[in-house]
């Protein structure tokens, strides 16, 4: 039996098809302005028995696609545990949400923290800042790691931080140092969330921002633990949704 998991994020949509204990297919596309149409196209020609949808747009697309919904918190917890059975903490930084989830020994969600309403300290924040520094998002982490000195950015508000960045540029600071300061600000925020839920060993870093090398290193250094970053960190939520679809199929029948 094939199950499908769809993670409809604010920036990207991920699809995972899961079959007989293995990932049969996994795709990541931009969410665009018409996520439902994007999802429909993504599922075209794919065959599966049960679909579970998670992510920011889950309620928008699930009814039309005949899927069930699950929150990102549960989806990431299930996906992360599949990839790493010893997982104790999941850090997920996506397009406009960041969350930290603490799992029990049996994989149940014990506590979680999520950013409130704005995009402070999320992928979107890093995107806007990278643009201000005229560097592609893929190269942004590398630029930060090349810093030869340290400066500070105090605000995590995208609007205020941008004006701080502009004044640092005007002061003649090197782009690498500014980039590092921005990464440090995000790391600080995430670490605050980790402390609030209480760190449990076995930390998985997922979500699109996990592809950023600098942030992974900062989090790992400051938390004093090794982070596991999945090969495809953006599909952990979709994987969790696909696994839940398989479980629902088994528990409640087709």
């Amino acid at each position: 039996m094939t199950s499908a998991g769809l993670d409809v994020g604010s920036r990207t949509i991920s699809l995972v098809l899961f079959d007989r204990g293995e990932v049969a297919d996994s795709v990541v596309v931009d969410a665009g302005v018409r996520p439902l149409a994007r999802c429909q196209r993504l599922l075209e020609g794919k065959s599966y028995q049960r679909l579970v949808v998670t992510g920011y747009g889950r309620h928008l697309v699930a009814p039309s696609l005949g899927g069930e919904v699950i929150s990102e918190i549960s989806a990431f917890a299930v996906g992360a545990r599949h990839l790493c059975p010893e997982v104790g903490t999941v850090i997920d930084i996506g397009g406009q949400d960041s969350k930290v989830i603490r799992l029990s020994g049996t994989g149940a969600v014990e506590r979680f923290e999520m950013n409130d309403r704005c995009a402070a300290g999320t992928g979107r924040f890093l995107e806007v800042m990278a643009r201000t520094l005229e560097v592609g998002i893929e190269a942004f982490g590398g630029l930060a790691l090349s810093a030869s000195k340290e400066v500070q950015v105090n605000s995590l508000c995208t609007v205020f931080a941008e004006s701080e960045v502009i004044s640092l540029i005007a002061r003649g600071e090197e782009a690498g140092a500014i980039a590092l300061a921005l990464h440090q600000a995000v790391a600080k925020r995430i670490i605050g969330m980790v402390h609030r839920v209480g760190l449990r060993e076995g930390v998985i870093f997922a979500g699109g921002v996990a592809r950023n090398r600098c942030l992974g290193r900062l989090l790992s250094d400051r938390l004093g633990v090794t982070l596991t970053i999945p090969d495809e960190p953006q599909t952990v939520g979709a994987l969790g949704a696909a696994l839940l679809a398989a479980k629902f199929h088994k528990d409640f029948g087709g």
Partner: protein
Amino acid sequence: MTTDYKPMWTSLGLNLEKHDALLDVLGKAYQDIYLSQQNRPEGMGYLDFVMSEVHGLRIKELQDARAAGRKVVGTFCVFVPDELILAVDAVSVGLCAGAEFGFDEAERLLPRNTCALIKSFFGFKLSRVCPYLEASDLLVGETTCDGKKKAYEIFRDVQPNIYVMEVPQMKTAQDRALLRSEYLRFKEALERLSGVTISAERLKRGIDLVNRRRSALARLAALRGANPVPVSGLDALLINQVAFYDNPARFTDAVEKLCSELEKRVGKGEGVAPKGTPRILVSGCPMAVPNWKLAAIIEGSGGVVVGEDSCVGERGTRNLVDDSGSDIDSLMEALVERYFKIDCAIFTPNQERVDHVLEMAEKYQADGVIHYALQFCSPYVVESYRVEKELSARGIPVLRIETDYSQEDTGQLKTRVEAFLEMIRK
């Protein structure tokens, strides 16, 4: 509303255009959130009627009472004793506002970082859309939180008939004496306003009316301990909200009738949500009409609210006033005795509140507690730490939420609430 209330609204000085806009939003929200619910008790018909006439018939009643020489007293807090207001034959109306309306205007007088509840009653006043405010002969503010305390100073500029009551912040003997002297001062103010002297007999009558209302609400609360729960949290919240401005005797009868219907449901094992639905206790800041945001999110996500540790909930209804005294002094003492027990977060320390939350969680078989704080409401935001700590220590899951009246964070709140319910279900 079928009757044309426009002349009445005009005579109260309302801005008809904005008022129409408000009623429009309110009507739509009520339709979407309330009338779409499944399996509602028949007794909720009374509440539907009250809501449909919220700015109509009820205001006409207030205006008729005023024409007959009675006074209307508007209040903002459960520390203001309704018993005294009713003792002078005045009508008591709760004025807390629960909608993001007129905030632009409010923010001209208040800092942006002010809690939504305060901004809302300023917004209602400045945009002239609240007939209750305009029909009030006296407004009673109180020194609970700093935000309200200072805001009333500014509010006086736009509505001069405001009286401010001092509320203690600790529970020592001196604080109790302060509350007693404040209640005596308030009694005199009401006597001056109405020209009526409060006799023991009058006060007893006031106490009786309010005790009966509180007993009816306590009966309703107790019925929500049944599994499956016979009434939705949304409906129970509405009942607690309407308690603040409806005619007390009529309201009490309607709630008692509803409770009898619910008792039958419980007897037959019927409920609004199937057994196994995650049962949530909400704890924290008051939710004034039409603030249905959190309850709608919880119940729209597959949970059910079984109790409210809130001023619009058990904080406002717990404990009755002992009416056995025969003279005014002993009745006033009984009033102080009852109100001094209120576990508002402005008190320090406030262990009583934590104890009440634990007690309620058990009594209503709650699977989890959602702590609801309005942004910038320091007393509740800060106190949420202790509430969570003590609940967690006893293995009760807690989700802390800080929000306001806007809809912009609904998506994120929904995700957190859904995740919390999924966590509980396991």
